[in-house]
């Protein structure tokens, strides 16, 4: 009989494997999975003991089996895994109603961008394990002890792509309810539910007592079965050996309570043995759950932040979209992500709850760009993202590498759209925004839009997407062209909410197109839509008028208790000057003074003033570069130090960015830059602050910097040099071990791009090491790199 989770029966998993192996003499540092081949009887006897104690499911001895471990053991992965599953299966075969789980733990490496493991490689690592375990006849798959939600997502995708087995997934949490990688209980629940796990929960890390609040949160937020596998308390170390502080009695009492509260699957982790599980089995006799599973809620998340629609107004930031934004377009064409990241950070600071990300430009590879943007934005901002594209391929790529549960923008009522987009939403565990248009266009009546919304909802449900994961955008039309349409849109928002019970999203600002004083119309339309029950406007979070409208709405509707949010934001604004700025003094600064003093805002103002007298390039040559030279000299003579140098560089950069916007607008492209430099931290090295320092300084000297980031393979550097026609390559390495990677890179550059000049730098480098790796120059710091590149 196939393994099934039954609503009325608690399933008991086994206790620890490692603890049992240590009792049988396995040394620390030994490879437990090797025993599947060298001592199968020992493994079998452990399974037998757990079954005899009353467990329903045993975990095969495969927790740490992966390609790295197999290599270390000198065995193939498939033999380590299949032997383990076969042993566990044999133990089940002489008993009734017992099951063997393929047990998969974290792979030991950290995924990019925090670490160096690419997402696809992680999926492949887990896929190998799944194929071997499923092939050997595992009844189900247990993904356990994960601390990185992103790695767990990779593992879950691998399971779904390589088997049809039931899959249970658990993570380890700290006492504060977050994992080492910052994932919260709620984000785990949102993500795993949507990805199609059959059960989810917590294991390891803590004893049953410390897990109580975490299990409570799980039971409160999860609409699928919950699993709990605590340690036998907290470890006490004696002579390097771990001992656990919870008795079998106390353990079993806690498990009983968890089961009564609603945990359907229980078991033990570190420190537990068959004695613990025997008592658990005894205590669970006649115990039934008192739990009513909470209904699904409409929510999206990053690992550390979950947001739910319906409780309060959510702002979806619209600024990461190149349409109509020349500077962003230029940045994307140059593959420069800094601009995108800054805009993302700014919108978060302005109060956005979700960020819409659209990378659509006719002449760029949108799928690759959207994927890259998602990865990079998630490395600096913890807001959930709304993936925005009309290209299903771009949406699929981005949804796959997204860390958490994204909102996909969008699907519509057209058959083709439904067929292409909904499977992506289902497979990658997303929520989806449905636009109320179909092959006949946008219906002019609210009823017509409701009909399409209903159709989208029903088609989603047929694909296996719950209606809670479907949101609707009733589409705002331009009121100057179709005046009666605004009222229809507003009516549709209410109807979708009341008749379908779906959450709504609306891009508001189109409504005022073609009218004067657009902000007046925009904020009024927003207030009216909120009154119809709009859950989340897509808007510029920096738009004061709209923010004010939301703040006032929240007070008037009782969503801002004691108006405290409103008071904090707006008290004392009556007498305030038009805008809060960082300005400290009334006097104005020249550009060189502003740069020397490291004053960003002043540098911008001085630049604006200068623009009436000279062109952007003149300002760069006559004002910015000489100022930086003088600051640089002070740095080299140790009158000032790195923080001051960088502060000046940031001020110069602010001035530079303003000039670039003008250059982009006037269309004098980047042809006037001094040279193109590809800069990277070499493969194997993940420390890139040094490289980033050099980048900022050289940018200010009007070099075009093509930044490839950290841990960059030699081939990618060669590729970038060729693609951009770069004359210079700057390489950075922090550790002695990665200096060799520098050499490999330079060797390849010499072969593939002979004319290119290479400058190297980094903590351990010296002149002689630079010679050894074959570089043209060694720069001990950013200013030396400037000197090497020659004065202008």
């Amino acid at each position: 009989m196939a393994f099934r989770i039954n609503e009325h029966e608690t399933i008991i998993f086994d206790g620890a494997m490692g603890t049992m192996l240590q009792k049988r003499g396995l040394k620390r540092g030994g490879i437990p999975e090797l025993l599947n081949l060298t001592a199968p009887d020992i493994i079998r006897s452990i399974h037998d003991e757990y079954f005899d104690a009353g467990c329903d499911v045993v975990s095969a001895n495969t927790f740490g089996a992966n390609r790295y471990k197999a290599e270390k053991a000198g065995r193939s992965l498939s033999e380590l895994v299949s032997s383990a599953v076969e042993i566990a299966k044999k133990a089940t075969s002489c008993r009734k109603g017992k099951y063997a789980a393929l047990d998969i733990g974290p792979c030991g490496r950290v995924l990019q961008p925090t670490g160096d493991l690419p997402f696809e490689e992680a999926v492949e690592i887990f896929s190998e394990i799944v194929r071997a375990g499923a092939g050997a006849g595992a009844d189900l798959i247990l993904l356990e002890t994960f601390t990185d939600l992103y790695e767990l997502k990779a593992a879950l995708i691998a399971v779904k792509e390589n088997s049809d087995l039931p899959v249970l997934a658990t993570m380890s949490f700290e006492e504060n309810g977050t994992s080492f990688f910052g994932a919260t209980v709620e984000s785990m629940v949102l993500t795993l539910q949507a990805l199609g796990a059959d059960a989810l929960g917590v294991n390891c890390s803590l004893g049953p007592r410390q897990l109580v609040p975490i299990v409570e949160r799980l039971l409160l937020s999860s609409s699928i079965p919950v699993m709990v596998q605590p340690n036998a308390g907290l470890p006490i170390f004696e002579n390097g050996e771990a001992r656990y502080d919870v008795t079998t009695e106390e353990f079993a009492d806690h498990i009983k309570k968890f089961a009564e509260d609603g945990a359907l699957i229980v078991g033990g982790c570190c420190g537990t043995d068959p004695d613990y599980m025997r008592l658990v089995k005894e205590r669970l006799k006649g115990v039934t759950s008192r739990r009513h599973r909470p209904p699904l809620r409409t929510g999206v998340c990053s690992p550390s932040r979950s947001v739910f629609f319906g409780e309060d107004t959510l702002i979806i930031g619209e600024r990461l979209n190149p349409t109509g934004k020349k500077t962003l377009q230029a940045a994307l064409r140059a593959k420069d992500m800094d601009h995108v990241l800054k805009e993302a950070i700014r919108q978060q600071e302005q109060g956005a709850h979700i960020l819409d990300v659209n990378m659509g430009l006719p002449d760029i590879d949108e799928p690759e760009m959207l994927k890259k943007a998602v990865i990079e934005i998630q490395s600096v901002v913890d807001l959930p993202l709304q993936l925005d594209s009309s290209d299903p391929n771009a949406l699929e790529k981005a949804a796959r590498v997204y860390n958490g549960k994204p909102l996909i923008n969008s699907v519509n009522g057209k058959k083709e759209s439904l067929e292409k987009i909904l499977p992506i939403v289902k497979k990658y565990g997303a929520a989806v925004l449905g636009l109320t248009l179909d092959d006949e266009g946008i219906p002019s009546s609210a009823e017509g839009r409701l009909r399409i919304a209903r159709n989208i909802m029903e088609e989603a449900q047929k694909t296996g997407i719950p209606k809670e994961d479907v949101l609707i955008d009733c589409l705002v039309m331009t009121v100057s062209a179709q005046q009666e349409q605004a009222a229809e849109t507003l009516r549709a928002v209410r109807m979708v909410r009341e008749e379908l019970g779906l959450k709504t999203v609306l891009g508001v600002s189109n409504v005022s197109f073609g009218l004067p004083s657009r902000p007046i119309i925009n904020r009024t339309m927003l207030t009216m839509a909120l009154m119809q029950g709009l859950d989340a406007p897509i808007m510029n979070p920096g738009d004061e008028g709209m923010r004010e409208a939301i703040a006032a709405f929240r007070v008037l509707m009782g969503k801002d208790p004691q108006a405290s949010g409103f008071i904090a934001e707006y008290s004392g604004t009556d007498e305030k000057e038009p805008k809060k700025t960082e300005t400290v003094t009334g006097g104005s600064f020249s550009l060189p003074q502003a740069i020397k003093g490291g004053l960003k805002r002043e540098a911008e103002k001085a630049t604006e003033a200068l623009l009436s007298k000279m062109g952007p390039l003149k300002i760069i040559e006559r004002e910015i570069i000489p100022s930086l030279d003088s600051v640089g000299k002070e740095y080299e003579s140790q009158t000032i130090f790195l923080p001051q140098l960088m502060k000046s560089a940031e001020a110069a950069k602010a001035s530079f960015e303003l000039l670039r916007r003008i250059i982009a607008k006037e269309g004098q492209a980047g042809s006037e830059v001094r040279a193109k430099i590809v800069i990277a931290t070499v493969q194997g090295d993940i420390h890139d602050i040094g490289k980033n320092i050099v980048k900022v300084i050289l940018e200010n000297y009007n070099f075009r910097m093509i930044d490839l980031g950290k841990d960059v393979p030699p081939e990618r550097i060669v590729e970038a040099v060729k693609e951009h026609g770069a004359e210079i390559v700057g390489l950075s390495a922090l550790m002695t071990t990665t200096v060799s990677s520098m050499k490999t890179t330079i060797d390849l550059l010499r072969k593939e791009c002979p004319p290119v000049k290479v400058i190297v730098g980094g903590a351990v480098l010296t002149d002689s090491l630079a010679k050894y790796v074959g570089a043209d120059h060694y720069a001990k710091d950013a200013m030396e790199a400037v000197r090497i590149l020659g004065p202008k």
Partner: protein
Amino acid sequence: MLGIPEEKMTAEIQGRIGELYRRIREASVPRSVFAVFDIEAHDAEVLFEDSFSIRGRDLANICRDCKKAALLATTLGSGTDMLLRRSQTEDMSDAVILDACASAEIERVTDMAESEIIRSLSPEEHLTMRFSPGYGDVPLEDSKKIISALSADRRIGLKLTGADMLVPMKSVTAVIGISERITGRNKDCTLCFMRESCTYKKRGGSCGIQNK
């Protein structure tokens, strides 16, 4: 701090350091784990409980008289990494200070963990200097053995990249010998991987790590 000699430190920078250090303290969740093992110092390696060895002649020399050694792993957690990454896109001037503050903080956390080890020793036992992979001739890859012996992956979330760099970035793994005589605990510049390029050393001083 930040390579700035005391006489050239300004009030402005001092103030920013104070503020940014607070942000590091807020973003970090310091964790540490250690355990004491029986060891045997060989020629060019130290053998731990007959099951694995940490390589390095310098380390073996320091542990020459020791029968026991502590392995130690500490980290500020992944939140600090996120803050550092974010600051590098926002403002490099803050970023260099934050990075230095994070380095100082992990050093402090490691010192605290070391004090805890000291408290667990008997009065006759003393610690030798702290030795981290990458320092002297202890290969970086031996961090793997320290992490595995302490289950630091599972217990404090410390992992390695393919090139054996620690993740989270602001983390430390170390070996400390436990000796029955008092030995010099100062970090020795001649063993440091920065010895060729260190600006403190060039100025005739040292970075002061462990010179307390």
